[in-house]
């Protein structure tokens, strides 16, 4: 039996690509022939995937399994509809169009098309969300609940550990200033402006010896608006937009960070939260989308964006070693849920039946507890 995966893109550092690669690696270990197909890819992707049109030669075999990763509207959904393979969809969520309307009307249109298409994909053997938040959206879109389940993401955290550090960059960040960090695409649903507002209060009211680092791909219009806001607040020298950075610099960012802040109002999972847990950075996150689920009762979660109050909390966390250590301990504990062994158990629990694998008692429990039909 062969297992095929289709992704919209296969790029370095991309969460969906990493998820597909994690599954690919385990399938290989379990003795299955596995391939990844993508509509587009960067140089990294070319080492791991083929272009999706080449999948057509495999789509007539009923014994094969197709795992379709759905995260954006992409023409390769047609192959998912037409294939004779047994079908599994993994839904990574699509940002509601409303976030993009003002800034990128074209992107808003794509998002809307993507969300409108979701109900048409319900004819499948298994539908997995990488969070329960995503699974519930599928159920709302008409997927039969008994066919749905959760397969959490397995961020390749070890990869960053192996990367050599950028010493010059380290020196810049580790100069004694308090570093606020945000990692991820700089797009409207992430509400980077709210992170800037929180930092504004902290820098102006509590500790001027601080900086905000924003690491992630910048999109023009929204970025211009953020720059304009930063200028209006007089924080030009204290807010740094790094754009997409190398893994060594990303590692430096996490290592130098004092706090990771998420103000996102729509998240399907949020990998940087788990990465922050890994690097021992306290996470302060707005409770929206799948964020509370990813945090799993660790870190700091808030429901109101009361910036002066949150700035006071950040200050308190910086001064109260006991409180900070309690937060970090809970984050470390939560991290165990995302390690390779846990991911292997979840994947085996979700796909084992279809792959003809014998399930151990614990894995069978996982199927009921966190996998198919369990929620």
């Amino acid at each position, binding site marked *: 039996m062969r297992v095929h995966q289709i992704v919209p893109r296969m790029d370095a550092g991309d969460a969906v690509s990493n998820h597909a690669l994690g599954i690919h690696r385990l399938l290989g270990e379990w003795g299955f022939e596995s391939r990844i197909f993508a509509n587009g890819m960067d140089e990294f992707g070319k080492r791991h995937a083929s272009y999706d049109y080449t999948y057509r030669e495999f789509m007539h075999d009923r014994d094969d399994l197709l795992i379709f990763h759905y995260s954006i509207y992409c023409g390769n959904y047609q192959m998912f509809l037409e294939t004779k393979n047994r079908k599994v969809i993994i839904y990574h969520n699509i940002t509601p169009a409303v976030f993009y309307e*003002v*800034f990128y009307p074209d992107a808003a249109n794509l998002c809307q098309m993507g969300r409108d298409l979701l109900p048409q994909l319900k004819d499948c053997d298994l539908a997995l969300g990488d969070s329960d938040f995503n699974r519930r959206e599928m159920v709302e879109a008409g997927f039969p609940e008994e066919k749905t389940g959760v397969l959490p993401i397995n961020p390749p955290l070890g990869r960053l550990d192996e990367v050599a550090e950028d010493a010059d960059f380290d020196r810049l960040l580790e100069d004694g*200033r308090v570093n606020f960090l945000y990692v991820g695409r700089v797009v*409207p649903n992430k509400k980077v*402006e709210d992170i800037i*507002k929180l930092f*504004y*209060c902290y*820098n*102006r*009211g*509590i*500790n*001027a*010896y*601080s900086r905000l680092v924003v690491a992630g791909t910048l999109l023009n*219009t*929204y970025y*211009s*608006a*953020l720059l*304009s*806001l930063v200028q*209006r*607040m*007089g924080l*030009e*020298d*204290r807010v740094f937009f790094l754009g997409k950075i190398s893994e060594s610099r990303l590692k430096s960012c996490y290592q130098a960070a004092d706090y990771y802040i998420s103000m996102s109002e729509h998240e399907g999972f949020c990998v940087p939260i788990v990465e922050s847990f890994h690097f021992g950075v306290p996470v302060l996150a707005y*409770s929206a989308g799948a964020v509370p689920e990813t945090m799993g*009762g*660790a*870190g*700091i*979660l*808030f*429901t*109101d964006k009361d*910036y*002066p*109050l*949150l*700035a*006071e*909390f950040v*200050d*308190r966390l910086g001064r109260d070693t006991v*409180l900070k250590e*309690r*937060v970090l301990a*809970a984050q470390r504990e939560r991290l165990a849920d995302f390690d390779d062994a846990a991911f292997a158990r979840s994947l085996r629990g979700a796909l084992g039946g279809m792959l003809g694998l014998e399930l151990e008692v614990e894995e069978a429990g996982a199927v009921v507890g966190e996998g198919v039909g369990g929620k």
Partner: protein
Amino acid sequence: MIQVNGRDFDEHGLRAKAEARKRAGLYDTRLLGLLERDIRQEVEEHVFSMIQVVYDLQRSLEDAGARLEPPTDLSMGEPEERKGRGRSILRRLQTRFIRAVNEGYVQQQEQYNTFFTKAVDISYRQLCGALGGIDLNQVAEKRDRWLSSRPQWEEEVARAVSEQGRAQAVVVGIPGVSLLELLQEEGRLLLALDTSDKTAADAQSRFLPAWFHSQPLQILETMVPQDLGLVVAAFPEILTGEELEGLLAWAGSRMKEGGTVMLALNRVWTEQMSCDEGFVRFWPRRFLAGLMQRHGLKPQEWRAGDRIFLKGEMGA
């Protein structure tokens, strides 16, 4: 609601502290207003300013005699226009200008300027290197180190300065927290500004209204003090000549009779420091006195402890 590790956190203490900071003047109404600002407003204003830039450019080019709009019907030439190859090139340039505007190429101007500035900076560094082997990075580092330290005024100096002028006070360049604490106790301290974030942070940790800004004047220009009576520039070296002029203009236009500006003359203090002269701006007394006079202030030398000041008072 804030939850720590899944449990509700008692926010009362935090709220009280946030309120105390507001009362102390660390959060002003402009700051609180910006927290309410919708990011979409930035886009609208940005787009509007782009259009304005394009129209201004077009108008100034037209004023200079350039005709940018081609005739509606490109097949119709005007009799006074140049014929032949020149006309064709002009027509093509006109079309390209309009296309460039339409496609938003003006947005790239900013990027171009950045590259241009960097290129000039690199060339300058190369030139300096070729001339005398000056390590500009090292010099810049030394200068930064020098500029990041501040003269720490003794208690008696701080007290004497705080007794000058009347009503609200603004401090630019923080000479230690004593002066700010004295002014705050009297309810006079409106704001202290510094280009050193560390110095500002020290004051903030004592709930004193101190902000960091690399160009303090930008903050002052947004402020409308009700009754400004004292402006202290404890470290005028952090300001450029233009900024100093701006500061005195700002103070001169907002202070009434009896209002006082205190400019510290740091040369004596500076000479005790180890640094490379020539890379640090020591403002000459005559220059500072001239600025004061230009903005309606009567300058005179004034001493407190070992420190020398130029004190300027608003005349009638």
